[in-house]
């Protein structure tokens, strides 16, 4: 269609004038933005660098030589955080899906499980994660049960999975509840059972809808794996702590923070983009 419209069309003289003017205006705006940014940021940096305590701050937090020295240890600690995030993430996904399905089922046979799932979510969503880590990490080995691991990495992961399953279950449940009842009515009127309706019609749409909030939770999960350091797991946080307490120089913490940021900032940017796409898609869905 555009071919048909474009072949005989060339811009009118007024349109050409308008384009020249628009280009001029946007150049002017770019110049203003550049000047303003240089002034503000330049002033801030100057104040920071010329302030009396700057040398001490630099030596304590931004010691580049020391930073280079501890970088490999902190990085290998971060590898633990990443492993924990991915293995935990998979377990969380499976458990959370089960919890969300149990909480939304109306099947009478599953009533006790629905009740248990609700209680589980209430407890683990409401209790501070650090308490759960302490309880599982130090409490479970104290039981001296046979066959139960006393490896702090395993126990730390279990604690994080317990808590995050509750968070993620609620996100998935909200997605399930957000699917319009007319979709269910259409599926049921075709003769699909309630289970088939959930599996083939409701859940695929629900999961798609909650991908952005799930990505948010994934970023939080990565950060919160740092909490298992209190069990003595040598993750990035713990590795930084060991070095910092040895030298009273806090650069290792900054190194660890930068490493986390290098992963989380791109992920949050991606999440924001996914949310924007989702919102646009949802707005156009309204027209269906």
């Amino acid at each position, binding site marked *: 269609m555009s071919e048909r419209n474009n072949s005989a069309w060339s811009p009118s003289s007024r349109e050409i004038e308008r384009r020249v003017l628009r280009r001029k205006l946007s150049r002017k705006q770019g110049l203003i933005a550049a000047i303003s940014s240089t002034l503000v940021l330049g002033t801030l940096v100057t104040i920071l660098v010329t302030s009396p305590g700057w040398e001490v701050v630099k030596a304590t937090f931004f010691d580049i030589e020391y930073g280079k020295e501890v970088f490999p240890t902190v990085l290998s600690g971060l590898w633990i955080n990443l492993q924990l995030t991915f293995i935990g993430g998979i377990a969380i996904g499976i458990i959370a899906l089960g919890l969300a399905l149990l909480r939304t089922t109306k099947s009478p046979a599953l009533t006790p499980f629905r009740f248990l799932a609700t209680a589980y979510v209430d407890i683990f969503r409401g209790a501070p994660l650090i308490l759960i880590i302490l309880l599982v990490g130090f409490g479970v080995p104290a039981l001296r049960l046979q066959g139960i691991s006393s490896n702090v990495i395993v126990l730390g992961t279990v604690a994080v999975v317990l808590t995050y399953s509750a968070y993620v279950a609620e996100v998935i449940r909200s997605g399930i509840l957000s699917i319009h009842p007319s979709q269910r009515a259409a599926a049921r009127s075709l003769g*699909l059972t309630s289970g088939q309706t959930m599996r083939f019609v409701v859940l695929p749409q629900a999961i798609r809808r909650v991908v952005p909030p799930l990505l948010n939770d994934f970023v939080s999960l990565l950060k919160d794996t740092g909490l298992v350091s209190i069990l003595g797991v040598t993750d990035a946080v713990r590795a930084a702590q060991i070095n910092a307490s040895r030298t009273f120089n806090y650069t290792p913490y900054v190194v660890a923070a930068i490493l986390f940021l290098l992963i989380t900032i791109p992920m949050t940017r991606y999440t924001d983009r996914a949310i924007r796409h989702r919102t646009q898609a949802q707005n156009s869905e309204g027209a269906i």
Partner: protein
Amino acid sequence: MANVLELQNVRKAFGTEVVLNNLSLSVPEHTATVLIGASGSGKSTLLRCINLLETIDDGQIFLDGQEITDPAIKVDDVRRKLGMVFQSFNLFPHKSVLENITLAPIKVQNKSADEAREIAMKLLTRFDLADKSDEYPDRLSGGQQQRVAIIRSLAVNPRLLLLDEITSALDPVLVNEVLSIVRDLKQDGMTMVLATHEMGFATQVADEVCFLESGNILERGSAEQVLKNPANPKTQEFLKRVHQAGRL
């Protein structure tokens, strides 16, 4: 002729609001029964009760002589015999046209994917939509979406088709492409119950027209009788308003 559908003294209330009041209706095989009436007169609720999407508060509904309002009946088995098309199409947005149509034949009737596809393509070809089989619903016009929705309900070979104001959400230009499918189905001998505001269309397909008002059928008879020479003053009043809105 045997009655495919039989409603006896059906009552349905939402809280204190009685939506269907002591309503009885018989639908013989190969006939089309058209429900007319103002919004809120109970047309949609009636169709949803037949499809067991709503539970009735009293009375009985029979499908091919079997009481489907028996609490012990398997709801899914009943729905397998009924096709329903909604005002808002309700296609599955995450599935292509073909997948929308083949879902029930594959999962409910346990047909093979090939067999289901063949049935779907035959119907799509018949109603001029074969080239849209791989599109997703949001790429189709309203009229195309509603035609796909009709095909989706036909693919399971229903005993009775329920059509709930299927053209009310459509641009006037698109109404006819949807209604012509229904005319075709009528000619095939499909048994149908439909709620509509299209009086001209009602005249063409209806074997019986029922005028609903506050949950009851106030007047029933042939299209000629009810739409051209209504006896009940309320029917006259309703048709006058429809006429003023330019829909007759």
